[in-house]
């Protein structure tokens, strides 16, 4: 069976896996974005807290994903839980870092102006600082998504959902006639999904970055 025939035979299974993969990444990204921006907002004003947040987030990233998922299994069991936790943790770093850098990069005279015309602290953040920091934050989200696409494949190790199952199945049956097809289908599927997401982010950027600060 060549690769195309394989795809023709298994497309339903593949589509289901791809959908689950995308859905897992998307949901984890939403959580990671909310958490990451929140951490950024809470820490960017303080030199040490901001640095601590960035260092902690990059510390997590140095843990190999397979090891992290393996460590999570005894704590939360198999399946969705370790997948979600691992993905959210890995997704945090680029978002936290870019949120902090973005918020710190807002021109201090603009913050002074916002304060000076009588904006409350919350209004300064929501109406001035976050919109101005949004382009770097969005870049962080984009990088995180790309990263999670790959990492999500590892989740299959913990019986997680997604295209990783295809890859693991292929690897565990190396030498059988469909092994290569499975690995190839899983990998290409992930690459395709990643490209699709990236296209969506370009669109999101067009829609959410105000014209006045668009590059």
């Amino acid at each position: 069976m060549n690769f195309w025939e394989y795809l023709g035979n298994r497309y339903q299974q593949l589509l289901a896996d791809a959908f689950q993969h995308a859905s897992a990444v998307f949901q984890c990204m939403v959580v990671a974005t909310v958490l990451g921006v929140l951490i950024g907002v809470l820490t960017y004003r303080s030199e040490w807290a901001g640095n601590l947040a960035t260092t902690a987030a990059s510390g997590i990233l140095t843990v190999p994903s397979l090891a992290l998922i393996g460590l999570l299994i005894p704590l939360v069991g198999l399946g969705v839980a370790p997948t979600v936790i691992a993905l959210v943790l890995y997704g945090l770093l680029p978002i936290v870092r870019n949120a902090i850098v973005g918020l710190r990069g807002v021109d201090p005279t603009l913050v002074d102006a916002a304060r000076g015309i009588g904006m409350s602290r919350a209004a300064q953040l929501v109406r001035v600082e976050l919109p101005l920091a949004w382009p770097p934050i969005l870049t962080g989200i984009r990088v995180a998504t790309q990263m999670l696409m790959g990492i999500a494949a590892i989740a299959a190790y913990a019986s997680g959902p997604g295209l990783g199952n295809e890859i693991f199945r292929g690897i565990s049956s190396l030498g059988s006639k469909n092994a290569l097809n499975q690995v190839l289908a899983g990998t290409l599927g992930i690459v395709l999904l990643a490209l699709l997401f990236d296209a969506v982010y370009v669109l999101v950027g067009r829609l959410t970055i105000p014209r006045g600060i668009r590059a």
Partner: protein
Amino acid sequence: MPETPVATSGAAAGSGAASASGAASASGAAIRLENLTKQYAGNPYPSVDNVTMEIRAGETVVFVGPSGGGKTTLLKMINRLIEPTSGRIRIDGEDVTDMDPVKLRRKIGYAIQSSGLFPHMTVAQNIALVPKMVGWSKSRVQDRVEEMLDLVGLDPGQFRGRYPRQLSGGQQQRVGVARALAADPPVLLMDEPFGAVDPITRDHLQDELIRLQHELHKTIVFVTHDFDEAIKLGDRIAVLRDRSHIAQFDTPEAILTNPADDFVSGFVGAGAALKRLNLTRVRDVEIADFPTVTVDDPLQDIFDKLRDSQGNELLLLDRHRRPYKWLRRGDLSRAKGSLARAGTLVHDTVTRDATLRDALEAVLIDNGGRVAVTGRRGEYTGVVDMATLMNSVQEMLEADRLEAAEHRSAGGLPEEGLEHPFVRDAGGPEGPA
């Protein structure tokens, strides 16, 4: 500069609307600073040291002084962007030192260097910010945006939807002023607002501000390090030295003619007498009559007048009584009786609103040493010459000196106290009774 034609037409159209609404707008409030001190932790000296100052309602006070002297700190304490370590701030008699700073700032306009416009909002959104925050209705906010754009000389139709980066520096600064004035605050704080624009634009903006203030009568506190700007804009100038100690707080005239000490005279710089000329208008000096004839007068009359006039000279006016040519005795006969060829063209005139400096400039260029003064439609009203200017300047300086001497004997100048802030008497000459 692309803004000029639009801006001027807009300004002309706008001034009418603005003055109509001007009656309803809030004019200035008095500001009183009492023993204001700002001490930053870890700093041996306070940045602002025990400043007491009274700013009258509707006047423009300029803080001028060297960089790092604490003048911006002093300004930012008025809207409590910087909280004073001690001392009180009163606006219109009300103690605002402990009120909610967010509410306070919505009642105080704030314009800063390089405009401080939010780049992700359109011009209209920027201007609408404060009115929206204080809860104006949508339609009122929208009307106000149009009105403010008109007021600062920008065509609303053209500029409303633009983003700040699509504007020139001068236009951004205008929008910045419009935003500061949008909710009609009685007090306007301006922190070197024109510091980042080119000299020509700055000059325009200063003129605009003077015109605005003429209509609005806000209380304006303006910070600059440019003494010439201070002279041009200020009703009174506070020359601040280190730690915002007031070296002198007086009218520009008094500071120019009678600097309190070496620090002030150093800051005034060279050419105080020349700068003084900027403060007086042509209408304030004696405008002399000059024998005139018009182009429609019979030639014989012109000859007769020329012969009778003592100065051997006539000013020839055109049909609209505008100065046209200087005619000397003999010019006519040399030109064989043709008015078209006789005499020298008047190439420069000044209006009654021009500064004496402009007049002096014109007189110096003119080979006869005089310049014709014109009214609103360019019609002749008189002549100013070198002698008049010199006399006026002498009188002016003399009067300034007398006034300043009186001032000083009345104890109007703040005295410099001891170095140590805690030993100093809290009040000073203007302290609370």
